[in-house]
């Protein structure tokens, strides 16, 4: 800024595009780094969950679904364990997925 700017009426410089670039990068990378680190533990979590649940009820390992959904304010860890029908003579159409697997 030159001293003539005082007379030209220039005050504070407006926010720069480089500043916006830095801010946007920091936000997007913070998000991406978390999910990068997080992706790895899901398969292990799923394996261990199957082991624990299988100690108490008999389950089909394929019928366990673990998903992690990351949002801006809130993230959800959803664990879905599908239990097989109580016995073989249970109505077949009650659990079509179980029969399929």
């Amino acid at each position, binding site marked *: 800024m*030159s001293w*003539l700017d005082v007379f030209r009426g220039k005050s504070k410089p407006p926010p720069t595009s480089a500043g916006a670039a*830095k801010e946007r990068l920091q936000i997007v990378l913070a998000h991406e780094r978390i999910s990068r680190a997080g992706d790895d533990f899901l398969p292990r979590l799923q394996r261990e969950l199957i082991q624990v649940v299988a100690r108490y009820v008999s389950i089909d390992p394929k019928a366990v679904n673990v998903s992690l959904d990351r949002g801006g304010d809130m993230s959800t860890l959803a664990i879905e364990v599908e239990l097989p029908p109580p016995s073989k003579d249970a109505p077949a159409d009650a659990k079509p997925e179980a029969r399929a697997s």
Partner: protein
Amino acid sequence: MAQVIVVTSGKGGVGKTTSSAAFATGLAQAGKKTVVIDFDVGLRNLDLIMGVERRVVFDIVNVITGEAKLNQALIRDKRVDSLSILPASQTRDKDALTKEGVATIIEELSQEFDYILCDSPAGIEKGALLALYFADQAIVVTNPEVSSVRDSDRILGVLQSKSKRAEEKRDPVKEHLIVTRYDPNRVEKGEMLKLDDIREILAIPLLGVIPESESVLKASNTGNPVILDGVSNAGQAYKDAVARFLGEDRPHRFIDPEKRGFLSRLFGGRAA
């Protein structure tokens, strides 16, 4: 035992091949036996930047498939002793490169060379993963621009999880940052990401800053690595970076705007 260095970036067009050519030439100028391998199968370009495109007879895929011996495929540079180039293949077969094949080549090159530079293709597909897999050190090339910085961050994550060193839980790949196409005048005007901001975001040691320079295009036009142009800012900046890589302590140059004259400062004129 040779050091394997990958030159990588994630994003394309940021100066990987220019940097690979300059760095390999600089290491060889410093007396190190150096070979630079083009991993961009299907889109070979290192040969052009190095000016050896008319001397390519065999390529890396010919060596892997056994059609040629490694020594037949290596091109000895005529300008700098102790510099060799192993060109990529122009085949469209993406699976031509195999991990075992590359391992054998690197093993064999290790007997003869001090430094093996791997010029990575863009992206995070097979070619890029193979280029970084055997690395001991990585030179990450970044432009002061959002998409390039983001992709560099991504490739750093890949280096830390998918390299051989990471898989074997050995010491991690040593990372170096080279910022290319830096324009201090635009940085001063707030139009370009500051060097310090890029360093803060990527958080890896800075090896060099290559200023935006007309000499880079001139160098690629004629097939002479820009580091051979000792007059140009870019050439000098690469020379500094190589010296730092070899352990010398050199201050960073070309990172501040050129000094403006007294009258220009007084009246707020634009810097030349």
